[in-house]
């Protein structure tokens, strides 16, 4: 999967899960403050990323994924074999 397609797919999942508009989502946006996710919504989002990219994001790593960009970077680094 290309870098661009990962980014597009992450953003599509964010839009779907958090019911936000595409134009409101960019790498710098935080899930909680900017996009209105609560702790349960973040868990649900992480699980959606795991299913979409066939990866596992350990709970300990979830705390460091605060922005859309953090998620894109994490998935780029960890989904190399699962294209």
């Amino acid at each position, binding site marked *: 999967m290309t870098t661009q397609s990962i980014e597009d797919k992450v953003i599509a999942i964010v839009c779907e*899960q*958090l*019911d936000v508009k595409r134009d409101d989502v960019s790498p710098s946006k935080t899930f909680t403050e900017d996009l209105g996710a609560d702790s*349960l919504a973040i*868990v*649900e989002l992480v*699980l959606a990323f*795991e*299913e979409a990219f066939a990866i596992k994001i350990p709970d300990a790593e979830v705390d460091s994924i605060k922005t859309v960009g953090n998620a894109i970077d994490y998935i780029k680094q960890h989904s190399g074999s699962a294209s």
Partner: protein
Amino acid sequence: MDKRRVVITGMGVLSPLGIGVADNWRRLCAGESGIGLITRFDTTDYPVKIAGEVRGFEPTQWIAKKEVRHMDTFIQYAIAGAAMAVADAGLDHSPPRDRDMFGVYVGAGLGGISTLESTIAALHAKGPRHGISPYFVPAIIVNLAAGQISIRHDARGPNLSHVSACSTGAHSIGEAFRTIERGDADVMIAGGTEATVTPLGVGGFCSSRALSTRNDEPTRASRPFSASRDGFVLSEGCGLLVLEELGHARARGATILAEIVGYGLTADAHHITMPSPGGEGAQRCMKMALRGAGLAPEQIGYINAHGTSTAADAIETQAIRAVFGAHAERLPVSSTKSMHGHLLGAAGGLEAAISVLALRHGILPPTINLDDPDPACDLDYVPHTARHVQCEYVMSNSFGFGGTNAALIFKRVEA
């Protein structure tokens, strides 16, 4: 100090007869049935293929799209019912004086079994990490109906979900009445909600042989008090009232629909599903409601019966005869379950709303499908067609598995 009086100022209902009070009341007065073939799941392997489904419900009309999938249908119905009841009461424009005195008692008989079923299937297919949503628990637990309503309407007072099977809605309203009466709240949203037209819900009642199998005649399947009745028809929906302290309602200029004056609750202490002989527990329940209201039996002008279209209809008949004596000969009793089916935990809420409407409009909704009355059911059941009768007091009965009984009495208020 005089007792605080409690009145009804708003109502919100969803049933197989429609969404909202107006559609329900119109169809009840017309003697129409809301029962049909089950569309929610494939009934091929089930002996029962009919139910009362709420039709045309669009959750996003009431709930943000992203939240809809985080709650079971019974909670969605409760949110819609509360929104309608609050609007009907005018609380949007003239809110409660004190948010700490604004409470919610909304229960359910079973809770989120549809979500439970789909989650168990996903758990088996995908395992616990991906099979179970982080929203699973708040999507299914019964008290999230009351919780969601409190969040949406900033109701910071008493908040409970009573669970008493088919008496849930009536108990919730009765307990809200007492809560306002004793001064712990000024305004309460109260009643029941249910959404169990699912494989497990229908299958469970099939297994206990409780449901009608009149699959070829869905609209004629719920036939309380008739000799050919063969079980109840499972339905779903929600019935909520806004109860309010009289002075608070007057100060806001609210329209007062009726006063609630009596509440009885008893246990049969007899059997898990069968009523006690002669409806002994139901008798004590109706007597308790009359005693609390300070009424003689002769003052009740109409009973909205529990009347489920099961063998228990004859026992409720015996209980009414025992409590009302000679007055039972002149006392109209109808089971509107003949039209909307059995909403389980929501039944008492919907039927309380119907009782209030009967007082307000001077119309008694009928018992339809009573073509062949059971000789053991020998009261005036207002057969087939609605009747114009202006009552001063009406009673609504609810009896549930576990032998738990509730009776409510409403009083007419001059319009």
